[in-house]
């Protein structure tokens, strides 16, 4: 039989069948649904439907991106759920013939599949299991009235969105479904190996799906490590038994109390809540703490344990939450930027570790992953573009390209991983996957020699980007050698310093003749004020130039650079300290704006600023032009200014 072909509908069917309830449908039913799909593209912050709107003729499945489900009660907006890949939303009202009870807003650029209810309904009627799924899904509303009703999954993953604080303890505990288990006769050494491979603190001892006991870090410490039992003793000798079991639906408060009462750190979730039925999950104290706390130490630990990009992404969400709290509580910027730096750094390290693991072989040489720009200066608070580069150890010429190819492949994975977490690709391809920025040690030295001995405009721009590097992963020896090389080159290199100075002055004062703000005159951000270009970059450039003149290594943070300068040049102490203050104030300002608008905070709509904020900003600008004056005099820059 001949038929017309619809490749795209087939692909959509392939996607849908990975998720409930579509997974139980027959291929022809799936294809019928897929053939009627409308692919909807929505940019970040777009409203798909609004609370109280009448139901659309279709419901939605997230293909790419993420959607927040929000409900507004008495002017308070609460985010009840986040849907990501494969999740369904906006279906229940269509069955109940109601208006939407909540709004759906995209968290990021998203692609959604809209499925017309008219093609879906008949299939539900015909298919018992689909109906059953929907009933279970809708019925779970009764416990937490709104939170789960639009959700497409029966079980949620281990890590989820931040919950509203008041009700937190009464929410059902989230458990890990992927149980790490062994049999009772397994030697302890083998069980311990499984635990460390999976980075977990406990292993369930199972016989015919029934939990017999549990072996934890503590059991191993108290029995094997102190020599009570040999390392190859069978697990049953030292495991804790019986296991404390509960049914699913256990609340967080209950779980905590149970753990305290029994002095244990793990609870097993079984089908009927007794140790005599099938084990379906594990709740650990660690998971509860992690889900509860947005404290930096817990987050770092969570990052280090994360085994999925998705988990890292959800941790990033919580980091933003933490940042918001810091800013609201007026924590000093110095502390905030250090903590955020550490968290970013841990994330990048984890992404690198995971990328290396995915490579077919371990790295052939020593290498270092350098973060450039704001992360290099320890000033990255919000998600901005990723700028990075790789340096690898010198190898003989005949295997150099082969070695580079390895690192480019690694960089492709790492760049993509970072992008998936939320660090956008760099528009200028200033990334390690670009062969231009994946160089051996002597190639980097040569590169800097070229830039610094023939400083044209582009060379200076590249220098200023690459000077502020920070090693995120790998061998510090390599990056130190680059730094030493740079200092050698800049020594008495008047030509270079003058060129760098004039580039530090390339963005003139942000205020116009009448002391009004200068706004962008064209492009996407017409009539916005470009905070980065007009205020943050000039002060950053100034700090870099002045510190380079003093040959100070390993201080990349602009505020810290000026503090050091104040120490080194007592005659300019006052100006430098106000520069340091300005750098921090601008960074805070940008962060606040970014959090407010869920973007990088670079472009500011002046109308949204209060009078006080405008005055504060103008005060910062005054410092910027004062330090620019100093540079002009010191480096004798007069051309074109």
């Amino acid at each position: 039989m001949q038929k017309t072909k619809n490749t795209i509908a087939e692909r959509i069917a392939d996607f849908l069948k990975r998720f409930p309830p579509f997974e139980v449908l027959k291929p022809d039913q799936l294809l019928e649904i897929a053939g009627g799909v409308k692919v909807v593209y929505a940019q970040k912050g777009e409203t798909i439907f609004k609370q109280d709107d009448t139901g659309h003729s279709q419901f939605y499945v997230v293909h790419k991106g993420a959607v927040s489900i929000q409900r507004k009660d008495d002017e308070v907006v609460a985010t009840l759920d986040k849907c990501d890949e494969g999740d369904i939303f906006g279906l229940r009202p269509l069955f109940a013939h109601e208006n939407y009870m909540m709004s759906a807003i995209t968290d990021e650029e998203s692609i959604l599949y809209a499925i017309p209810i008219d093609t879906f309904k008949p299939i539900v009627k015909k298919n018992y299991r689909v109906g059953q799924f929907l009933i279970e899904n809708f019925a779970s509303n009764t416990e937490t009235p709104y939170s789960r009703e639009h959700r497409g999954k029966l079980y949620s993953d281990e890590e989820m969105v931040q919950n509203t604080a008041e009700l937190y303890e009464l929410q059902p505990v989230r458990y890990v479904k992927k149980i790490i288990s062994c049999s009772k006769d397994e030697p302890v050494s083998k069980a311990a190996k499984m635990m460390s491979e999976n980075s977990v603190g406990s292993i369930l001892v199972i016989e015919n799906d029934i939990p017999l006991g549990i072996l934890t870090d503590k059991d191993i410490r108290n029995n094997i490590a102190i020599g009570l039992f040999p390392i190859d003793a069978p697990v049953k000798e030292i495991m804790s038994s019986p296991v404390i079991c509960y049914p699913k639906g256990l609340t967080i408060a209950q779980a905590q109390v149970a753990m305290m009462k029994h002095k244990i750190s793990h609870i097993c979730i079984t089908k009927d809540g007794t140790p005599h039925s099938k084990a379906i999950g594990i709740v650990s104290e660690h998971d509860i703490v992690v889900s509860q706390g947005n404290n930096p130490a817990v987050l770092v630990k969570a990052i280090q344990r994360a085994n999925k990009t998705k988990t890292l992404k959800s941790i990033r969400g919580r980091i933003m939450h933490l940042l918001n709290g810091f800013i609201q509580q007026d924590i000093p910027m110095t502390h905030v930027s250090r903590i955020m730096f550490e968290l970013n750094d841990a994330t990048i390290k984890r992404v690198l570790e995971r990328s290396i693991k995915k490579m077919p072989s371990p790295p052939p040489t020593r290498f270092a992953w350098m973060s450039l720009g704001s992360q290099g200066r320890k000033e990255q608070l919000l998600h901005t573009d990723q700028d990075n580069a790789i340096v690898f150890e010198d190898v003989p010429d005949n295997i150099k390209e082969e070695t580079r190819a390895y690192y480019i492949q690694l960089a492709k994975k790492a760049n993509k991983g970072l992008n998936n977490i939320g660090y956008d690709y760099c528009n200028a391809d200033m990334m390690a996957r670009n062969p231009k920025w994946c160089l051996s040690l002597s190639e980097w030295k040569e590169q800097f020699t070229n830039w610094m001995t023939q400083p044209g405009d582009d060379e200076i721009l590249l220098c200023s980007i690459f000077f502020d590097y920070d090693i995120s992963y790998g061998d510090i020896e390599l990056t130190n050698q680059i730094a030493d090389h740079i200092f050698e080159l800049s020594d008495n290199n008047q030509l270079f310093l003058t060129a760098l100075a004039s580039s530090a002055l390339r963005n003139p004062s942000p205020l116009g003749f009448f002391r009004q703000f200068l706004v962008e005159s064209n492009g996407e951000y017409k009539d916005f004020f470009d905070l980065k270009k007009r205020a943050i970059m000039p002060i950053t450039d100034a700090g870099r130039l002045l510190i380079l003149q003093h040959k100070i290594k390993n201080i990349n943070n602009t505020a810290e650079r000026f503090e050091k300068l104040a120490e080194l040049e007592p005659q300019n102490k006052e100006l430098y300290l106000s520069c340091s203050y300005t750098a921090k104030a601008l960074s805070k300002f940008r962060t606040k704006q970014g959090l407010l608008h869920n973007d990088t905070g670079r472009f500011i709509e002046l109308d949204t600023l209060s009078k006080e904020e405008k005055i504060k900003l103008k005060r910062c600008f005054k410092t910027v032009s004062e330090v620019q004056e100093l540079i002009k005099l010191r480096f004798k820059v007069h051309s074109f200014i």
Partner: protein
Amino acid sequence: MIRFFKRKPSNHPDFWKKYEALFQVKPPEYVGDNRFVILDTEATGFDFKKDRVLCIGAVSLQSNVIDISEVFEIYIEQEKFNPETVKIHGIIKNDKVKTFTEEEALVQFLDYIGNSVLVAHHANFDITMINQMLKRLRLPKLKNRVLDTMTLYRATRINSNLIDRDKNYSLDQVAENLNISVKDRHTAAGDAMITAIAFLKILTKLNKKEKGKLKDLFRVR
């Protein structure tokens, strides 16, 4: 009124007359009100004269929605067997897909595109190949306005001396940079879908969606 050149009485077939008539209406002013047809062709090679189109895939886009029930995918009968085209023949044979003559394919294609704006990656190739098909039927060239996602994408790159502005970007590179999955590379419909998603993302980057004016898109370079 004096006519210097006497117009030949049109002896074009009805389907062409119908298509031609659609262009008497002016296109809507705003991007969001226009229908776009994003297309891709698979051909036996790159020679406009010798090579033939094997398959045309296209999706239509209106106000940010791509309707899958309106996907266009047509396979064209080949006069002689060409070893280059084994892959497509494989598709046709294995999936028992119906094939059409060039004329039948064009009738359906013109009906599908109407007066929509056409979008393709490296559009010149696809449009020329289709114009060659028309020429073989003694018909004029396509009348639709055409956008090239290559040119549009290049405009989203920042204006910096560090980037070669004249660089050519393949669909794979564009997809990688815009984070689009490339599962269906090298089937016409699959490529058209990837191009369509890229087109939407580029429009967002250029800030030309919805309220942007259509004519501004043709000025991008």
